């Protein structure tokens, strides 16, 4: 990785590392909700005879606790600074750099994700492992595949949030778009429930036609080994496709946005 990228990743990491109490509070909240979700899903599985749409007890536990950890790493709920900077006009400073802001924001976000992975991912995972017992993958290949899929999820989610941020060039206030995104991305990414509980046609549509399952369901399914290694590779390939597609879309929308730019304020 070139020096610029390393410096930006490091800056993103340090930026979030400054807010230790917020990190602790976030990890605590994720853990509390982990208990709630875990008890609900386990009781559903218990009434259905031990498994739920093909996930056994330990798979469900892993699905919940890894999900609670990944939520902060992928970070679909927090918006990028971009929208706020467009609203205040500070985006001028981003445009006056010799680097495309898309990449500056991406590398900084990867730094943020790295910090979250070391803190907010670890806490719920350890709690889940101690309190409920996690699923242990049978194949060693699952570990690197999970890491790869998580990295792809981070970039896909970044691209989605960057696109939402770009809408600020037209809307100025993106709270409406944001609320819609939080609801849809939560339900369609497998955060609230595994997508397998949906009717098959609907989950197929989500997997094929939307980037949402790439955000969480993809790495989670790989971690609990649903389908074989081949299936996992196929899932990663789908994520790569969405990543490329969304980044291209970001570039295209950004060009348009900058062309119509009205810088706010004096």
């Amino acid at each position, binding site marked *: 990785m070139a020096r610029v990228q390393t410096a930006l990743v490091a800056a993103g990491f340090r930026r979030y590392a400054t807010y230790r109490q917020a990190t602790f509070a976030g990890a605590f909240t994720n853990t509390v909700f982990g208990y709630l979700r875990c008890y609900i899903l386990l009781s559903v599985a218990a009434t259905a005879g031990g498994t739920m749409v093909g996930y056994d007890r330990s798979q469900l536990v892993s699905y919940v606790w890894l999900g609670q950890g990944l939520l902060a790493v992928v970070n679909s709920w927090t918006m990028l600074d971009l929208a706020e900077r467009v609203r205040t006009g500070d985006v001028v400073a981003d445009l*006056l750099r010799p680097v495309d802001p898309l990449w500056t924001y991406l590398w900084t976000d990867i730094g943020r994700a790295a910090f979250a992975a070391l803190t907010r991912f670890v806490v719920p995972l350890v709690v889940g492992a101690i309190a409920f017992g996690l699923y242990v993958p049978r194949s060693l290949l699952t570990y690197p595949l999970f890491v790869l899929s998580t990295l792809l999820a981070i970039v896909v989610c970044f691209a989605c949030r960057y696109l939402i941020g770009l809408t600020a060039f037209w809307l100025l206030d993106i709270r409406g778009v944001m609320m819609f995104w939080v609801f849809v991305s939560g339900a369609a990414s497998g955060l609230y429930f595994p997508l397998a509980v949906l009717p098959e046609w609907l989950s197929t549509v989500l997997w094929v036609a939307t980037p949402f399952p790439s955000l969480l369901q993809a790495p989670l399914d790989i971690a609990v080994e649903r389908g074989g290694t081949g299936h996992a590779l196929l899932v990663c390939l789908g994520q790569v496709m969405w990543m490329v597609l969304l980044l291209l879309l970001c570039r295209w929308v950004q060009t348009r946005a900058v062309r119509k730019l009205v810088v706010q304020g004096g």
Partner: protein
Amino acid sequence: MIISARGLRKEFTVSRKVGRFRRERHVVSAVDGVDLTVERGELLGYIGPNGAGKSTTLKMLTGVLTPSAGEVSVCGLEPVAKRTTLARRIGVVFGQRSQLWWDLPLEESFSLLRHIYRVPEGDHAARLKQCTDLLGLDEFQRTPVRQLSLGQRMRGELTAALLHGPEVLFLDEPTIGLDVLSKQAVRTFLADVDKRGDNTVVLTTHDLADIEKLCRRLVVIDHGRVVHDGTLDELHARYRSRRTIVADLDNPWPEGLTLPGAVVTAVEADARRVTLTLDGMAAGEVVAALAQAVSLRDLSVQEPDIEDVVARLYRDES
């Protein structure tokens, strides 16, 4: 010629509510045909009242805004088309914006900028040292930007804009909101930048002391048009702003007394204080004539006030 603009225009469409549902669209020209050339090494003061189009011009020159019409070239490049290339060769400070990383210490912003602009380590260190010495950054380089005072932040912003050795420095109101000491620090610093002559500087400001202390050339813009382009003296000459002599007298001013080369503009304080405006004659001669005519207690010669001239200029144009 490092900056040139010909017939530069920027129009915005504004819609206004008329009646319950109807909206009327208006075209407003923020910049209305500006011609401007700046030579390498110049320090140009670009002034005008609020809303005159100063910032809009600067945003077009830096490639952030697309002009509605006209030709622009900065460092031989077309700013909008070559924005990222141009970015390496210019430095920009918008007084009301920040280019620093809010959550990080100042020094980390600087080192991040070194990577972004790919500045060799040695050059970076040399430039940073120069700025640190001149602006006294030492005290707060390790403080996160969000905790800096406005004056400290502005010193950081100026440094950030200069670290990659830009050919042109665009400064949009760099002294806005600063206290007297910080303003002085910024001015002294800019005077030094100007003296070294490595950078061409375009400075917009509302603080006319900035102009008096720094700018040999002054471009005044109003309603999107250039209304004056020349030195400060030329501006004074054009508006015939003249020096005045204020004299305190031992005895009342004899009514009807006139002096060659000066006009009596005020007689105050029981006729013991008189103000004379010079009209084409040197101050010395008028003072000599005055000393012969009356008994002087005290006397002062006052330079024309730039604030008055500019206020008159703004008023005339509107």
